[in-house]
Structures are given as C-alpha cells and as structure tokens.
C-alpha cells in the first residue's frame, strides 16, 4: 500500500500511478504497511510507520499555484489571530498595551488639569 503525496489517496502496491490524480508512484508516494484498524475504548492508537516523503521531480507537471485569481479572502486558520496580535488589533491578549495606553491617558489628563489650575 502506498499513499499519494499529491492527493493522499491510498493505492495498491501494484499500481504504478495514483488511481485518483495519476501521480507516478516512484515520484509522489509514501510507502506504508497495510493501515491497521484502530481499536476503541482508549486502548491506544496504532499508526502505520511512514518513510519520509520522496522529493517530487520535475517530470510531474504542476502549477506554481493552483489559485490563479485573487487569493481567497479567508486566511489559514490560526494565522489571522497572529496577524491581528502583531498589529495590536485584538486577538488573544493586549494587557501590556492596554496598561501603557491607560498610563498615557492619565498623564495627559494630569497635564491638562495642571495647566487649567495654573490659569
């Protein structure tokens, strides 16, 4: 049994090309033992041993990018939060930023109040 690294479909050992995407076995495959059925009831998971994926050679024709028009509006899940955080626009936590802003506001208020009193 081998797994096509292009579409991740299982193929029989004797098949030289992926039955789904026609990728050549020797160029886009990961050989595995016959996948074992996993038991239930918390008895643990047996996973087939995988060899490292083979490098794809130039003989496989592939587009540089499958998306030829505008990129999708959705981002990879998780990366949007990271981007939002880096711009300080929300995300998980901005405690330090909030505190610093608060301190600055207080100082400004004290400055203005002081000037008014001096008048």
């Amino acid at each position: 049994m081998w797994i096509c690294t292009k579409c991740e479909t299982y193929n029989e050992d004797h098949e030289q090309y992926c039955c789904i995407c026609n990728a050549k076995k020797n160029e886009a495959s990961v050989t595995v033992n016959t996948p074992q059925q996993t038991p239930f009831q918390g008895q643990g998971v047996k996973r087939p041993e995988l060899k490292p994926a083979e490098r794809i050679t130039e003989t496989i024709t592939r587009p540089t990018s499958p998306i030829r028009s505008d990129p999708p509006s959705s981002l990879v899940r998780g990366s949007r939060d990271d981007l939002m955080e880096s711009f300080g626009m929300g995300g998980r936590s901005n405690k330090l930023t909030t505190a610093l802003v608060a301190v600055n506001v207080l100082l400004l208020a004290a400055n203005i109040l002081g000037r008014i009193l001096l008048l």
Partner: protein
Amino acid sequence: MGTLSITIKKDEFVPHNIGSYTLLQPMTSNKSGFSKWGFCRKNDKDYFIKEFLNPVYPLDSIDLSREIRQKKIKQCEDWLAKKELIYKRIRKSQNGNLVPPIDLFRDGSHYYLVTDKVDEISVDCKAISYFDMEHKLILMKVLANSFSKLADNNVVHADVKLDNLLLKKTKSGYYTIKIIDFDASFIADDPPSGDEMQCDFVYLAPETFLAMIDEPSDLTPKIDVFAMGIVFHQILSGEMPGFDKEYDYVYEAVLNDAELFINKNIPPKFKVLLAYMLKKQPAERPSMRQVLTAIKALEDDSLYAKKNAPKKPSALKIADDFD
C-alpha cells in the same frame, strides 16, 4: 473628565483531562447542533474531540428509580453499539481521505469521540471555484472515491456539505479534501427514523425530506449523491444550483419537479453529470462509483476550461441539456 477603569480579564479555562486526553481549550458548539467540540492532546499529538450532548449516562449520584436508570443505561449501550458498528464500517472504508473516529469512550455522564486533527486550509467555495480545472477534478475525484468506498460498505454519511469537507494542502503542494463528521451516518439497512435525522436542509435529498415527514421513502447512499451534486456545483462554479425564488432549498424545487439552473460556466458534460446526480428519484441517480468513472472519462474535455476564466455567472435551464 470621566473615570477610566482597567480590567484585566483572567483566563478562566484550565486544561484538564477527559479520559486519557488533555483538553486544550474550551469546547464549543459552533457549527455543531448536537455536540460540542474542541482540540485535545495525548502523547504529544493533537486530536479533535467531540462531546455528544446525547445520550447522557445516568451516574449513581443522580437520583433515579431503578427502572428508569436501567432503561437509560440500555439506551446508552444500544447507542454505543450502533456507533461502534458504523465507525467500524467507516474505518473499513478508509481510502486516505476519510477522517474516521479513532476513539469512542465515556467520561462521567457524557460520551466522547476522538479523531485525527486535520490541518485544514480555510477556503470558501468561491475561492475553490478559482482553482484550475486540474485541481477541481482532483478534489471531485477524491470525494467520489471516498464516498464510493463508504457506499461499498453500505454506509451513508447523510450530512454531506462543505463544512464537513476540509481542504488540506498536501506535501506536494496540491490540495486534497478530507471528509469529517460522521455523526449523522447510518448503515443503509438500518436507517434512522424521520425525527432522528440530522442534516442540513441546504443539501437535503428529496427522499430524506419525505422520510422526515413520515412519507414512504428509501434512505440509501444515493442521498449522499444528491448532496454531492450540490457540492460539485459549488466546486465548479462557486455557487449553489439556482431555482425559482418561490422555493427555499434545492430539494423543494426538485420535489415539485421545478427546473434547476446550472451555472453557465460549468462544462456542458459536467452539467449533464450534475443533472443526473440531482434527479428526484434515487434510482435514476448514478452511484458514487459511476460518478467517479464519469469524472475520469470527462477529464480530457475539462481542459477547455483553462482557456475560459470564470465570468459573471448566469443561469442556464437544465432542461435545455436534455433536448
């Protein structure tokens, strides 16, 4: 000047164990009507975990009569046995792109299911429609192959929709599609009753609706074929098949023998395939294996699409293709 108060919210969630898994974040019921889900970890590997809201096991601490307690325990055991049978068949159908349950257990009064975590790419169907035809066909063949394996084992997924089909980037830089969420699945020989059906009305097959209103109907893997016809339309065009605005859903239009509008940019021979997949009578729809064969046979014709960028969609009556 108004007062300024600073509130630093303390994280309330504390990772804890459910069975032998460590829950990493609060569970949510987002996009899941009959369960809560989240992510967990075991042996340094991340998994997806789901908590079923029903059934609820009657713990000894709950004050119940012996008779009611025994009845509830029996319901739980029957439910568990049924699930284990279905999941066994699903694992047997594995072709690389199913995400079957790998653990099913009870912790406290609730039952939990664990699957591998899929590192999916969040791309909506409109974006998929901009993939080139080669990639669209790969996705469609992956789906047809996966569901034909399920059908070979008499398993009906029964909740086919884009939310349950996760796009994933593979090691080769291509995209494949993973099938998740088998909560509504059943063995075709033992379909649920109408009020037990869990499904999305957008992708509902006509016979499923009939079963829900207790009309005679056969629930077979062909209900997945119908739903997949709608999904294929979305993959190929970025939108749902059109229908008259007096209807809310595709199945309503089909039940009333109303015309469906297939996007003009879909290659003509694929329009015919979709027309057959969206037939009112299940017997007239192709099997998923026949769908796979048809897609492979139509592959060469699809290369024409490389020359035509998707234009503003316009409708074409499906009836025209049968003239």
